[in-house]
C-alpha cells in the first residue's frame, strides 16, 4: 500500500473514531457506578466497572416489557406498511400513469406534515376506535410515517424489474394478482427486505406518537428511557444502560444487513 493510501486510511479511521465516540461514551457511562455517571469533572473511562445501571433492566419489569412492546409495534407497523405499499408501488412503477405520479406526490406531502400538529386529531380517531394504549394504535401511527417512505423505496426497486416478467407469467395463465405475488414479489425480495428494515427502524425509534398513544399496556422503550429524567431525579446511568441495550439489537442486525441497507438507500434515492 502506498503512503497516500495509508494516509487516507488513517484519516478515515480517525474520522470514524470521532464519529462513533459519542456512542462509545454512552456505553462506557453505562458501566459506571451511579455516582460516577454524573461526576464533575467527568471522566471517560469508568473508575470502577459496575453493572448497577443495568440492574434496572432486571428489577423493573417495565423495561423488558417496553422492549417487547417496541418490537411488536415495529413488526406490526412494518408488516402493514409494506403490504400497503407493495401494490401501490407496483402500480406506480409498472403502469406509471397519472394516478401513480399523483400518489408519489401525496406520499411526499405526507412526509412534510409536522406530526405534532395532527397528533391530537389522530389521538381522537384512535379513541373513537377504542384503540388507545394498544399495540395497534401505535403501529397505525407509525405506518403514517413509514408508508410514504415505503412507497418511494419500493417504487424504486420495482422499476428495475422488467415488465416482461409479469407478461410472461400472465401468458402462463396467472391472474394479475397471482403474477404479482408469485413472480414479482420473489424477484423483488431484496428490495422488500430493505424497505422493511427502514420501516422497522422508523417505528423502533419513534417517540412522539408513542408517548401520546400509550399509557401502560403498550408503552414503548423510548418513552421508558425518557422517563428516567423525572421531576425529582435524573437517572443518567440507567438511561445510558437502557439506551445502549435498546440500540444494540438493531446495530447487530445492521452488521449482517449492511450491504442490503446501503443498496436500499441507493435504490430509493436514485430511482426516487
Amino acid at each position, binding site marked *: 500500500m502506498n503512503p497516500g493510501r495509508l494516509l487516507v486510511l488513517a484519516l478515515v479511521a480517525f474520522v470514524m473514531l470521532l464519529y*462513533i465516540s459519542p456512542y462509545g461514551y454512552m456505553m462506557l457511562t453505562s458501566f459506571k457506578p451511579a455516582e460516577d455517571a454524573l461526576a*464533575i469533572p467527568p471522566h471517560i473511562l469508568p473508575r470502577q466497572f459496575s453493572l448497577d445501571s443495568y440492574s434496572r433492566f432486571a428489577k423493573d419489569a417495565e423495561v423488558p416489557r417496553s422492549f417487547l412492546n417496541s418490537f411488536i409495534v415495529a413488526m406490526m407497523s412494518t408488516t402493514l406498511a409494506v403490504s400497503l405499499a407493495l*401494490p401501490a408501488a407496483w402500480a406506480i412503477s409498472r403502469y406509471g400513469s397519472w*394516478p401513480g405520479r399523483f400518489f408519489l406526490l401525496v406520499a411526499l406531502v405526507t*412526509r412534510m406534515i409536522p406530526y405534532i400538529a395532527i397528533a391530537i386529531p389522530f389521538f381522537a380517531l384512535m379513541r373513537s376506535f377504542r384503540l388507545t394504549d394498544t399495540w395497534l394504535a401505535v403501529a397505525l401511527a407509525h*405506518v403514517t410515517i413509514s408508508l410514504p417512505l415505503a412507497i418511494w423505496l419500493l417504487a424504486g426497486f420495482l422499476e428495475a424489474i422488467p415488465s416482461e416478467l409479469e407478461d410472461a407469467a400472465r401468458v402462463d395463465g396467472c391472474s394479475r394478482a397471482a403474477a404479482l405475488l408469485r413472480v414479482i414479489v420473489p424477484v423483488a425480495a431484496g428490495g422488500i427486505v430493505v424497505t422493511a428494515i427502514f420501516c422497522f427502524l422508523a417505528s423502533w425509534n419513534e417517540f*412522539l406518537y408513542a408517548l401520546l398513544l400509550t399509557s401502560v399496556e403498550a408503552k414503548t422503550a423510548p418513552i421508558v428511557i425518557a422517563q428516567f429524567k423525572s421531576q425529582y431525579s435524573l437517572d443518567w446511568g440507567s438511561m445510558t444502560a437502557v*439506551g445502549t441495550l435498546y440500540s444494540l439489537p438493531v446495530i447487530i442486525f*445492521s452488521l449482517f444487513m449492511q450491504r442490503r441497507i446501503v443498496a436500499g438507500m441507493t435504490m430509493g434515492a436514485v430511482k426516487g
Partner: protein
Amino acid sequence: MSRSDRRYVLLLLAPATVFLAVFVAWPLLNLFRDSFYEVGLMTPGERSFVGLENFQRALTSSRVGGAALRTLAYTGIVLTAEFTLGFGVALLFNSLGRRSELLRTIFLFPLMIPPIVAGLLWRFLLIDNFGIVNHILRQLGLLASTSDIAWLGDRDIVLFSVALPDIWLTTSFVTLVLYTGLQNIPASLLEAARIDGAGALQLFRYVTLPLLRPVIAVVLFIRGIDAARAFDIIWVQTEGGPRFASEVLSMHIYRNMIRYGDVGFASAIAVLFLLAMLALSLLAFFSIWRPQALRGDA
C-alpha cells in the same frame, strides 16, 4: 393504458389510499378546519369561526417569524454540515474501494439510535460542568476553562449546538447514499476522461458531480424535509431556549397547541408551515431537477 389496466391500477392503489385518507387526510382536514376557528384544546365543542384571524396573527407574530427564520437556519446548518461531511467521507470511502466495508458498517451505528436518546446524549456531552466535550477541549489546551464555550447557553451558537445530534445521526445516511452513487458511476467514463487529459479536480467537476446530481438532489430533498420538521431531538436539549434562540416552528406549534391550548392559532401556523414546505419543495424540484434534464449534462 387499457380500461382494465386503469381499473387494476386503481385497485392496487386503493388500500394505501384508504389508509392515508383515514389516518392522515382526516386529521389533516381537522387541522385545516381548526385553523379558521378559535378553539381551546380541552373544549373542542366550544368553537367560534374567526375567518383568517389566526393566519393574520401568525403572519404578524414576531415569535412565529423568528421561529420560521430559525427553522430555515437550522435546516441550512444541518444540510450544509451533513452534506459537506457526508460527501467528504463518501469520497474517502470511494477512494478506498472495497476496503472500506468495515468502516461503512461502523458508520451505520448512529442511524440505529432513537433521536430522543441522541438528543439527551448530546445534551449530556455538551453541557457545562458535566460535559465531556469541553473537558477534553480544555485538556487539549484549546480552552482555558471548561466554561469558555456555553454550547447550550449562548444564544449565538445554541442553534448550531442543538443541530449536532441531528447531524451526527444522519450524516451516515448521506454518506452511504452518496457513496453508492459514486460506485455506480461507470469506471469507463472516468477512464475516458482521464485519457483525454482531465486532472482529478476536473474529473470531479465535469464528470463525477454532474452524474451524481440526481442522487445529491434526492438526499438534500429528503433530509431537508426531515430537518425542517425536527422537534423532539431539539426539545430534549434546550426546550427551545435560552430565550427562544433554539426554537423552531414545530416547537412553536407544539407550545401553542398543547401547552397553551390555543389550537386554532397553532393550526394556522401548521397550515402555513405545510404550505411553505410545499412551495419550497416545488422550487427545489424545478431548480435542481429540471434544469439538469433540460441541459442534459453540464
